[in-house]
């Protein structure tokens, strides 16, 4: 009984200060343009960092169309370089050079987080894309699935983090032609 009285005594002033943070990350009928960094890792003995540009348009609050264009600056990984140096052999995988994907981005949940004195509004999103992985030899059909966060940073600016799985089909001299890779991307953009 004494504990309950003490709890009421402590919480009543706090309840008096509670305020509701309104939803600030509004996407419906807005364009989101961003640019950033990406890295395609698919176990092909190439390191493939890149620059990516994204443009999304949300006809509805829950989802939007998305276009991604990336330039990848692939080079032989250290182990691949070592094999090449010693034997002159190179991976039979194509060397990734770019990505061109279109797809749909869908909001799974909306959240807010207080970090220090800042409150961040964000979307937890899932996305699916199809398009092409451009390699040194061909434009290969590609498909990606990703999940990530769209984070409001200010009235106009936002950040986006996607962790994706990319698969593509490419004709290889010896190994299996269907490949899977990890495709994280981090970008900062402006809401239009």
């Amino acid at each position, binding site marked *: 009984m004494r504990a309950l009285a003490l709890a009421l005594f402590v919480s009543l002033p706090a309840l008096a200060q509670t305020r509701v943070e309104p939803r600030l990350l509004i996407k419906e009928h807005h364009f989101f343009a961003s640019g950033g960094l990406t890295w395609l890792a698919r*176990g*092909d*003995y190439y390191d493939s960092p890149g620059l990516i540009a994204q443009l999304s348009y949300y006809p509805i609050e829950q989802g939007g169309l998305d276009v991604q264009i990336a330039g990848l600056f692939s080079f032989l990984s250290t*182990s*691949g370089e*070592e*094999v090449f140096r*010693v*034997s*002159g*052999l*190179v*991976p*039979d*995988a194509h060397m990734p050079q770019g990505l061109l994907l279109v797809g749909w981005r869908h909001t799974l949940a909306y959240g807010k987080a207080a970090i220090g004195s800042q409150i961040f509004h964000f979307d937890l999103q899932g996305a699916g894309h199809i398009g092409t992985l451009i390699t040194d030899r061909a434009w290969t059909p590609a498909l990606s699935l990703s999940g990530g966060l769209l984070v409001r940073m200010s009235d106009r600016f936002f950040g986006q983090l996607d962790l994706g799985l990319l698969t593509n089909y490419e004709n*290889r*001299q*010896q*190994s*299996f032609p269907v*490949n899977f890779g990890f495709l994280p991307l981090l970008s900062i953009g402006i809401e239009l």
Partner: protein
Amino acid sequence: MTTNKAAAIGVALCACGGTLFVDPNPPQLRRVVAQYSTHGAAEPLIYLSLLDLYVEDPNTCGFAKNWFSDVTQKAMQETSSNQLALATQDLAPQCTQREGVILDTESILRDVQLLMANNPLSHLRLVIVYANNLNLSLPPERSESLRTLSARLTALQGWPPLLWLVSSKVIAKEVFADATSDWTYAGDPAMVTAFRASLKLALPLQSEVGTVSQLQPLLSSSDLGRAQQFKLCSSDPEATLPGVPVLGMAATLNRSTPPAWQITLPPQIAVTKVGFTLHTVKAQVELCDGNCDRYLKIDPDQLQQSWNVFRGCMLEGAK
């Protein structure tokens, strides 16, 4: 050693990921097939009809003999435009088979000798059409006379005559003949059709004189111009390739002494069309136009192999 180590490193690494290592400048390979073909030559068709018929009704004896002689003549004419008939020997003039007529071997041999003298470049082989319609065993003297004729012709010509039996099944089982046709009855159109068809399948006889060719180039001039090295992948036993390395070994192409081959074919003299074998002798060669010391893999489980070190051809099944 370094190469093997490198390949091993490559394979080891490949096993970890889904990617395999390949040579960015693989050997430029192609396969060519050298081929030597011969064709048989049709020999003049010489034939002899031996009539040994039994006809109960003496009135139809002449008809039966004329009918069969006519059928034989027409069938032979259809078979070959270059045909010569020896005089028919009638061994049963009264169609009783008891006349005791003896096969005139000497006259046959004389005729054949004459024909051989007139056709010195041909390989004449007498086709003996022996017609006997009686469904009984041949009298021993008749079998003996046929054997004697065969032996003497063999001695004369160097090869036996071709005995074509038109008879009952009983005789066909007893007499060793090169070909048989069933005798049904005189005037049977079905018998004529079958006889003609079987003659057409076998005649005229074909010859191919055994060949030992001159040494001739294994590769065409365009192949010689492009290729740097070569390997012999396979060759038929009739081919000999002097100076060419053993199967699967790489050799540098020397344009002043290009690889050559020689063909040795066994003779086939005056054999039936169905028995005649057309000879085509082949040799497969793998040519390397560049990067001949570079790597290829012929089996997913194997290491990359340098083409001119690896013993064997690689293009077939190469990855």
